[in-house]
């Protein structure tokens, strides 16, 4: 049974995950003007939650090892296997644990966002960028070598909340991801069109002006970093559930910080629809490179896998030089005309 070719499913999954992460980046960079060079930090937080917590909770419920030994590879695959057979027969439990983990990932993501906001309040521009980047690197490093959380260098298997759907597992998982991604899109679109979104743009354009109007910049920045990190963390958790495994070395600054930046810059910084378009274009081109690099291999004296990096890097540079506003530029927001407001008040 093959309703949809696997490559389309692959593109949809990549699109959904990167849409969530890039939208969160766009909220911080495009709207609030913060140099978020440590997106991977929040994504990794979500992955850690999904990798370490649902399996342990279930293990605790069913009397299996749930302490540090849960993450050791000799136990881990056995425990997760047992849990998966339990989940297979219990859709309700599967859905509950799935939703619970996502909520927890968002909460912990917000906490991480709050922690990063501490230096963010004092530092400016590039200094903040470097600090965020270094933080992301260090969390990746620690979780890669510290075994009790997600098994360190061996990684862990993750319980599969889609197992009960049987043969349709990949379809269900893909479309759940896509649904959540589109929901996130609507949410962020709403958020950025709200007064809060307008204040963010105003802060980006002139901090002085917005301070004069009585807004607290520290609060705005903290709040934005928390919301952004919560959404990025959601993306990380979903990705971990989809792949069914979790290892810290997947979460490098190239794949989870620079790529989202490239997607955002291509689509249009400060425009959610543009970001969606940028992610779609990039994901399709990336997939095509992966599919067809084999054809190129006999003609070049190197592994064509590196062309992916050349492509993303060139895209970043070329967009920055020739089309800094992106493919779909940010549009001014039209507020309601004064007459209409007066009518509304009268009514």
């Amino acid at each position, binding site marked *: 049974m093959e309703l949809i070719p696997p490559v389309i499913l692959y593109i949809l999954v990549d699109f959904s995950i990167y849409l969530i992460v890039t939208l969160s980046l766009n909220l911080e960079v495009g709207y609030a003007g913060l140099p978020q*060079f440590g997106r991977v930090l929040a994504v990794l937080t979500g992955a850690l939650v999904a990798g370490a917590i649902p399996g342990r909770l279930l293990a605790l419920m069913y009397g299996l090892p749930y302490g540090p030994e849960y993450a050791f590879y000799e136990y881990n695959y056995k425990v997760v296997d047992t849990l998966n057979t339990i989940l297979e027969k219990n859709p309700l439990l599967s859905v509950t644990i799935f939703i619970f983990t996502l909520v927890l990932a968002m909460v912990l993501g917000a906490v991480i966002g709050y922690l990063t906001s501490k230096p963010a309040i004092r530092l400016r521009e*590039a200094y903040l960028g*470097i600090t965020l980047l270094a933080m992301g*690197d*260090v969390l990746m*490093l620690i979780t890669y*070598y510290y075994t009790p959380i997600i098994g360190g260098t061996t990684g862990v298997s993750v319980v599969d909340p889609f197992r009960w759907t049987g043969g349709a597992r990949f379809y269900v998982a893909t479309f759940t991801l896509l649904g959540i991604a589109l929901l996130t899109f609507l949410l962020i679109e709403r958020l950025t069109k709200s007064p809060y979104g307008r204040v963010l743009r105003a802060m980006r354009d002139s901090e002085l002006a917005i301070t004069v109007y009585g807004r607290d910049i520290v609060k705005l920045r903290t709040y934005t970093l928390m919301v952004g990190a919560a959404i990025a963390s959601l993306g990380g958790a979903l990705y971990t559930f989809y792949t069914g495994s979790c290892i810290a070395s997947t979460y490098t600054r190239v794949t989870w910080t620079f790529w989202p930046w490239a997607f955002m810059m291509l689509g249009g910084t400060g425009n959610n629809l543009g970001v969606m378009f940028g992610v779609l274009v990039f994901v399709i081109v990336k997939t095509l490179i992966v599919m067809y690099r084999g054809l190129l291999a006999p003609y070049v004296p*190197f592994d064509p896998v590196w062309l992916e990096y050349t492509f993303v*890097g060139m895209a970043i540079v070329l967009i920055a030089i020739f089309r800094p506003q992106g493919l779909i530029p940010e549009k001014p927001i039209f507020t309601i005309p004064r007459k209409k407001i007066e009518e509304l008040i009268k009514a």
Partner: protein
Amino acid sequence: MIPPIAVAKAVAYADSLALMAAGITLIYMCTKTFNFAHASFVTWGFYIAFTLTSLYGGSPYYYLPVAFIFVGLLGVVVYVLVIGPLMRRGASPTTLMMSTLGVDLVLLSFIQMFTDYLTRVFKLYARKIVLEVYDFDVFGLPGVTFISLVVVVFIISALHIFLVRTKFGTAMRATIENPNLASVLGINPDVVYLTSWFLGGGLAGLAGAIASITITGDPTVGSRIVVSMFASSIVGGLYSIYGSVLGGLLIGLTEYLGIMVLAIQLGGWVAVYRPVIPLIALATTLLVYPKGLGGINWSRITVRFKSLVGGS
């Protein structure tokens, strides 16, 4: 107890870090660009030393000037093609930083391709490089320690003479202080920026070539230590080349020897967390004294110290 050879290696590592930080600071002072491509610049220096030593023989030290000039020209190319056009359009510091990240990805992919090319065409195994075997011994210590110290002292003196004693150096300092005023006086800021990218890139290449003699390398060696480079530069204060050199020495020694002391005290498992040390230094500097080492008013401190000593 830490063996003397470890101290010697730490000094060599710290020296190369000091040169990298000096390059980052020079480029930042002149063009307000946090150059992330420094990671790949350093790796290119590394691979030039490796390739030339493997293909033409001799000591890796012969190829230090080649690494300097090649990576310096790479810096010029990056400035002419990317940074120059962006600066003329008045791009924000974040955009400049992001574009150097793009450049870094491109250069990194070129290194990866070059490594594959070396393996396939010249049958060189280039994914784990150790050039330490080409080094010579001085009283049982690696020669790179002494050579790198000499290079750092030489570079600092040369930069000092260049910036303070020559006309172009004065023009350069004037441009750093106020580009508009300098251009009114007939200084072309473009030439100054170009020079800063040549010198900054050259220092990165030189540092990479020196590092190749003391640490094990692969195509990602630059991006692994890029956080240390930026930490050195920020600890140094980002507005003083001397400060950045001090920062590099400080970070390099603390990182190398600090983790060794911790490993002796707590056990070997701690060694993998080495990159946490520069992060702590970076965070402490930014939160406690963001001006960094270069921002400390040394003359005031000496005056105060003298009055204290005199008063007692």
